[in-house]
């Protein structure tokens, strides 16, 4: 196909698409990463439990098992290269009955079959020693020392930024309506911003993988959204929990867990309820109630008054039950990733390597770029610095001396840096994910007016043009009545 503009187009800039883009940026390729949202990582990647799973859940031999364990092993290096916060703190599955104890045994042997190292069964007593607030009902636990927690937003935008710095083109606010076909061959995508032609098209569109496949006549695979609702507790609750705790899993889900987040909050959830609408990100009174009840079963003393936010994530549950990663023979030029539900976040770096191998095998010429830089530096994080570092930063740029988010101690300097990073934070939500602004206990009440002013100044637009998440999500509508002088 001689007139292709791009070697590769990746549809979907979630954590999977972003890591694929990064891996492809090592090579002499023209790559386009596109997403319908106003920022990268705005799909399932922004609403999950953020656990780097050890890998004992999935059936041995499945792709989920394979990529989970392989992905997990890559986290220290990937997060160091990309300057992403990650803590290999270990995770626990807690048993509260005799049947649960049998489940723990199953999980442990499955884990060993999957190649998970260090798994250890411990007594209920020992578990309560490690977690003083744990339910009295605990009868034992499975400890997985390789499990951890990560900043899921950063895992995505850092990889995407690194890809962009290495030459990948990024098109946001770009919705793919269908795949372009020439004969049987997929030759690109049609979008709200015109057509883009490519040698290879990769579907990494999360919940919408099946919808896009259907536009190329590929039926069969169906993705059903399964809702998971969460609560976030204030950092003041952090002392009530020490560890990442799962209950024993059920056939449909890993259950309602309680976990610290990498930023020091506590996360409760998720529920697991099938829904029809792939855009249904609403929380429900019933779901939130279920979340709270489930969490209190593990840690009865959690204080629900410290709740600062609730949210919903949608699992992209595929009809095959496993990750679908394939190059359908009947549609050359197409690579599909579908059903990338949990442990997709953990698996994403390993999936990306595998995709590169698949493309190579399928005949894409991959020539290394010597100028490829694997590392990426995040914007400075004032609140995490020592006083001496803070002083030095303010001396360099006084804007780091002005705090604009009081709960998370985010400075004007950080906001400005996020506006000028390789993938500029164009929306309030994008800024929030880059800087943590507005994520504390006041939820943006204090910073919003200041942020509007700073973003408008940095982008040289009116505050009327700043949105929360693109589209019609304007934050303010008009000027107040002017008083003529």
């Amino acid at each position, binding site marked *: 196909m001689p007139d292709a503009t791009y070697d590769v187009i990746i549809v979907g800039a979630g954590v999977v698409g972003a890591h694929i883009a990064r891996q492809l940026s090592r090579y002499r390729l023209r790559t386009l990463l596109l997403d319908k949202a106003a920022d990268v990582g705005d799909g399932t990647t922004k609403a999950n439990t953020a656990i780097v799973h050890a890998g004992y859940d999935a059936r041995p031999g499945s792709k989920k098992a394979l990529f989970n364990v392989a992905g997990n092993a890559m986290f220290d290096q990937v997060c160091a290269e990309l300057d992403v916060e990650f803590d290999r703190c270990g995770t626990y599955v807690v048993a509260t009955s005799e049947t649960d104890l049998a489940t723990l045994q199953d999980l442990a042997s499955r884990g060993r079959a999957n190649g998970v190292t260090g798994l250890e069964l411990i007594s209920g007593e020992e578990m309560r020693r490690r977690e003083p607030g744990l339910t009295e009902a605990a009868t034992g636990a499975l400890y997985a020392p390789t499990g951890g927690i990560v900043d899921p937003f950063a895992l995505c935008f850092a990889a995407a930024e690194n890809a962009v710095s290495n030459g990948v083109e990024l098109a946001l606010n770009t919705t793919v309506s269908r795949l372009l076909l020439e004969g049987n061959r997929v030759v690109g995508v049609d979008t709200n911003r015109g057509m883009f032609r490519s040698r290879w098209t990769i579907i990494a569109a999360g919940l919408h993988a099946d919808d896009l496949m259907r536009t190329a006549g590929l039926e069969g695979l169906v993705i059903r959204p399964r809702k998971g609702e969460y609560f976030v507790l204030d950092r003041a609750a952090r002392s009530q929990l020490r560890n990442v705790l799962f209950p024993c899993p059920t056939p449909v889900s890993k259950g309602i867990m309680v976990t610290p987040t990498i930023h020091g909050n506590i996360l409760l959830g998720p529920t697991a309820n099938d829904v029809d609408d792939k855009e249904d990100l609403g929380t429900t009174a019933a779901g939130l109630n279920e979340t709270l009840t489930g969490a209190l079963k593990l840690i009865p003393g959690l204080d629900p008054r410290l*709740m*600062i936010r609730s949210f919903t994530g949608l699992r992209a549950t595929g009809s095959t039950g496993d990750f679908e990663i394939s190059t359908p023979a009947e549609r050359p030029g197409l690579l599909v990733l579908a059903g990338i539900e949990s442990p997709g976040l953990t698996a994403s770096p390993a999936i990306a390597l595998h995709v590169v191998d698949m493309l190579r095998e399928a005949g894409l010429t991959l020539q290394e770029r010597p100028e490829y830089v694997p590392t990426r530096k995040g914007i400075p994080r004032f609140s995490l610095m020592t006083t001496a570092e803070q002083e030095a930063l303010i001396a360099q740029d006084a804007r780091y001396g002005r705090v604009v988010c009081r709960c998370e101690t985010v400075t004007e300097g950080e906001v400005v840096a996020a506006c000028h990073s390789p993938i500029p934070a164009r929306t309030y939500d994008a800024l929030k994910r880059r800087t943590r602004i507005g994520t504390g206990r006041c939820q*943006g009440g*204090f910073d919003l*007016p200041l942020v509007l002013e700073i973003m408008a100044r940095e982008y040289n637009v009116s505050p009327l043009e700043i949105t929360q998440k693109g589209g019609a999500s304007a934050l303010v509508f008009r000027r*107040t009545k002017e008083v003529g002088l």
Partner: protein
Amino acid sequence: MKSISCDVLVVGSGPAGLAAALEARQTGAQEVLLLERNDELGGILQQCIHTGFGLREFGQDLSGPEYAWRWIDQVHDAGLQVLSETMVLSVDATRRVVATSKALGMIEILPRALVLAMGCRERPRGALAIPGTRPAGVYTAGTAQRLVNIDGYMPGNRFVILGSGDIGMIMARRLTLEGAEVAAVCEILPYLSGLRRNLVQCIRDYDIPLHLCTTVTEVRGQDRVTSVVVSGVDADRRPLPGTEREIPCDTLLLSVGLVPENELTRMAGASMDAVTGGPRVNEGYATDIPGIFAAGNVVHVYDLVDDVSQAARIAGRSAARYACSTQAPTGPTVRLVAGENVRAVVPQLVHPAALEQESIALHMRVRTPIEAPVNLDLRLGERTLLSRRFRYVRPAEMLTLTLPQRLAGELAGATELSVHVRT
């Protein structure tokens, strides 16, 4: 890091900080330093452009900024040192304060006495766990107030306001005057949570629908709010199935309560009162950490600024005395306990010895309103020491009971006093 020492350091320049700083100087502290994170002094008053401030302090009906400026002018005239755009990041029990300042970088301040006057903040949506989507267009009333009155932007065109707090009611009127429509003000309780005068002047005068025993049970809309669902509630504040009603709107404003801003107070290790959300203080507004005092909304949320200024003077005076002589009232203390229909009492502790020197004002709120004459009784065991009659009591309106000096003798040897409100 630049290190500064001073007699009295005041954190926050709202009405509480301003009054405390001035009073500290007038009590004899030489070096008084006032820190403010905003570029302007005055705290929340600067965005309260409505009137209703200062009737007691100045005998005049002033706007918030006018009230603030009366104090700011005095602070400048008295030659107090002021650092704005300076945010305090930490405080410890030795009163070592670390702040970041656009002009000075990181600074350390070592005051002889410290007054915490950081004000309060608003409770956001997450704290209520309102189900639904998460579109743009959900703001706290105070954030909207700031956007409209300071920045000059309208955060929406058609509003539903949840909560009948004062800021919400005042914003209902303000937004109406700006040409927006306020479709409803919903209050989960069977009575108002703000002042009666605001109901009349801000809601009724503008024909804004007020629904009591009603709450928002769902937020709808993808990008921006498109509607909210409101429901009636039962006596336990649980939504009643079947009463749901959808109200189209583009903005939901929350006026569901203020929370004292006490991160710094907790860092210093002061004991807190779980009910007020502020530190436990004595009659001089001293916390239990030596040399650390608290004033204004950090102690408990006030409804009238005049009361803030009055209490903050006491804090400033005690801080100055501590700074100049490291003297604090000594001897045993008596605990004040909230009894029947009383939510909390401030101060939480009094020294009988201090009462010998001057009378002590106790502030409290009732739990539930009583629209009939009631007695507010101060009791020592079963004995009523003091009683004051009120025509009615409402949670929105703070009650004050002044302990006269003559009771000092009665308090000697006591450990606990209780206050009760009953018909």
